[in-house]
């Protein structure tokens, strides 16, 4: 269990700043997921934590130890790579034991550690095979085993599931989660897949453009996105955004007026243009006029099995609604929609910050 403290980290390649003054405090035993689109700096941040990438300025502390200048192997970390990065000329057993062998461990110690890790990952029967004779999922297990053997207190995962097919990915995801619970070590996991982030993390840090946009529990990130970027990136199908005008306690989208008395403003609101965000499952669709609904035009239906996504046109602006599958087919072209007040997010149209 390691507390990881990152202070004002800056990393640039030439003139391109990949990490812009990133600070982060990870509590011991936490499962932190770094989430973001490709090129957002999440892998660079992970490399910096591992010591594989130098940083121009800023400090990294593990507990009370400043590790900024230490080599990766001096940081007591285990790391799992996207391409697994197994040594192809060695058996799984030798792969897992190589680091111990180099550090001068005895045969008995190596055997004990490898057996322990192999049992934990259920790969005992694969130990004498070479990586070329293993499937993707098996290679991934061996790679995790190699990280476990070294008795690390911090584990780093660099998109470890992205090379697996969908079914295996779900299996490995569940296994990594239970591994975290059993080991109690701190995990930092990089991914661009929001499902992985939501299911695995105790906290998620959403990154974009070299900065951390928001850090919080998966629920926080989903329900109270701090910026428009986070709101847009997290959630599938995505949140709808509409241009609106804020007036005291109400909001106008064209002629439609929405009551905002239940909305928790981050700071006292100023009247003017805002971006209104609503998740599809927070839009209710009715065939007839009811209290607090607004007329909208139904433009398309996308059945997705468990539910149906409806595309709607509200006074010239597009939004989507997620409804039970039996509702979709019965609807006429004109429907009446209502917004769940608890599902509304408002953003400043210029800065993108949550209001």
């Amino acid at each position: 269990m390691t507390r990881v403290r990152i202070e004002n980290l800056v990393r640039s390649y030439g003139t391109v700043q990949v990490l812009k003054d990133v600070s982060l405090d990870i509590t011991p035993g936490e499962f932190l997921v770094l989430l973001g689109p490709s090129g957002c700096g999440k892998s660079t941040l992970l490399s910096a934590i591992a010591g594989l990438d130098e940083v121009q300025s800023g400090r990294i502390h593990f507990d009370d130890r400043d590790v900024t200048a230490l080599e990766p192997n001096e940081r007591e970390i285990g790391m799992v790579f996207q391409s697994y990065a197994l040594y192809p000329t060695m058996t799984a057993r030798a792969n897992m034991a190589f680091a111990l062998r180099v550090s001068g461990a005895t045969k008995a110690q190596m055997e004990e550690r490898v057996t322990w890790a192999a049992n934990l990952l259920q790969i005992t029967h694969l130990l004498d095979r070479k990586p070329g004779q293993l499937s993707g999922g098996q290679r991934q297990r061996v790679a995790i085993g190699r990280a476990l053997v070294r008795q690390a207190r911090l584990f780093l995962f660099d998109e470890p599931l992205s090379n697996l097919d969908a079914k295996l990915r779900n299996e490995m995801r569940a296994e990594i989660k239970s591994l975290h619970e059993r080991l109690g070590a701190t995990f930092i996991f990089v991914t661009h897949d929001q499902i992985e982030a939501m299911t695995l993390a105790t906290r998620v840090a959403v990154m974009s453009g070299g900065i951390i946009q928001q850090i919080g529990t998966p629920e926080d990130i989903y329900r109270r996105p701090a910026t428009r970027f986070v709101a847009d990136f997290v959630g599938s199908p995505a949140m709808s955004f509409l241009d609106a005008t804020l007036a005291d306690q109400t909001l106008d989208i064209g002629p439609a007026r929405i009551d905002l008395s239940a909305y928790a403003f981050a700071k006292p609101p100023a009247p003017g243009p805002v971006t209104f965000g609503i998740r599809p499952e927070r839009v209710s669709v009715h065939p007839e006029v009811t209290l607090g609904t607004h007329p909208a035009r139904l433009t398309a239906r996308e059945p997705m099995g468990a539910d149906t996504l409806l595309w709607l046109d509200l006074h010239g602006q597009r939004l989507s609604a997620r409804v039970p599958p039996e509702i979709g087919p019965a609807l006429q072209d004109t429907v009446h929609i209502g917004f769940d007040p608890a599902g509304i997010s408002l953003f400043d149209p210029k800065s993108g910050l949550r209001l």
Partner: protein
Amino acid sequence: MTISHRTRPRLRPRTVAQLVLLPTILLTVIGYHGSILWTIVLSFTPSRMLPVYRWTGFDMYERLLNTERWQVAYQNLFIFGGLYIGFCLLFGLVLAILLDQGVKGRSILQTIFLYPIALSFVVTGLAWKWLLNPTTGLQDFVRSLGWENFTLDLLSSPDRAIYTLVIAGVWHSAGLTMVILFAGLQSIDHEIWRASRVDGIPRWRMYLHVVIPMLWPVVVTCLVLLSMNVVRSYELIVVLTGGGPGFSTDVPAKFIIDHYFARQSVCLASAAETLRLLTVAAILAISALSRRGGEAAT
């Protein structure tokens, strides 16, 4: 296309391909394999300047194996070949690893080391002949700098002249080996290097236990290329030492050509050629086996 199909009798694409290839196939079968067969046949005859078709069995082979000049030439094939291949691989690997470590001015160094391969063995031989000539080359140069007793007299010593061939050959071919091995090193997944840093594995152990074994198929490719150079080595020897002093630096190729065209001993030359062919076949078989072994390992 459709018109020509209607007006001409239609040939199936496979037939067309076979027709196109026919001249090449005939040329190869008659010119190449036919010649090989003819050579083997001649080695069992007492032909001198012109072919005579009278069976004499293994007489020529017996005579060949008892010829001192052939013994020296065949032995030289292995001395020269072993040292040439060994040093080419060694220097090639060391240079490739240095380049892979990100030495400054990589592309310039690469060009410098690769340059000799652009020269033919004739030019290489000439250049080294001049360099090693006691009165005009390095010896004279060093003496002119003040070391009056400096002697660099490799070419005129029967025991050491063979090593001048190795020096010139390695100078010529180490760059090629370097480039091939360097390409192999570059193709190794960089995450493996990152993983080794997390594991705390020193670089030299990575090269020894992981990277060089991974390069095995590439090394075999180099071996085959270099072996071909060894077996057909002729120009370098002719230009650099002329097989001398005496015939101390003779090699099978020179022995064979001399006996075919200068000494009018077609039978002996053919027997020698057949032995050389067997040697090549043996090398190819070994390399095929080891390549299969390498593939099974990865």
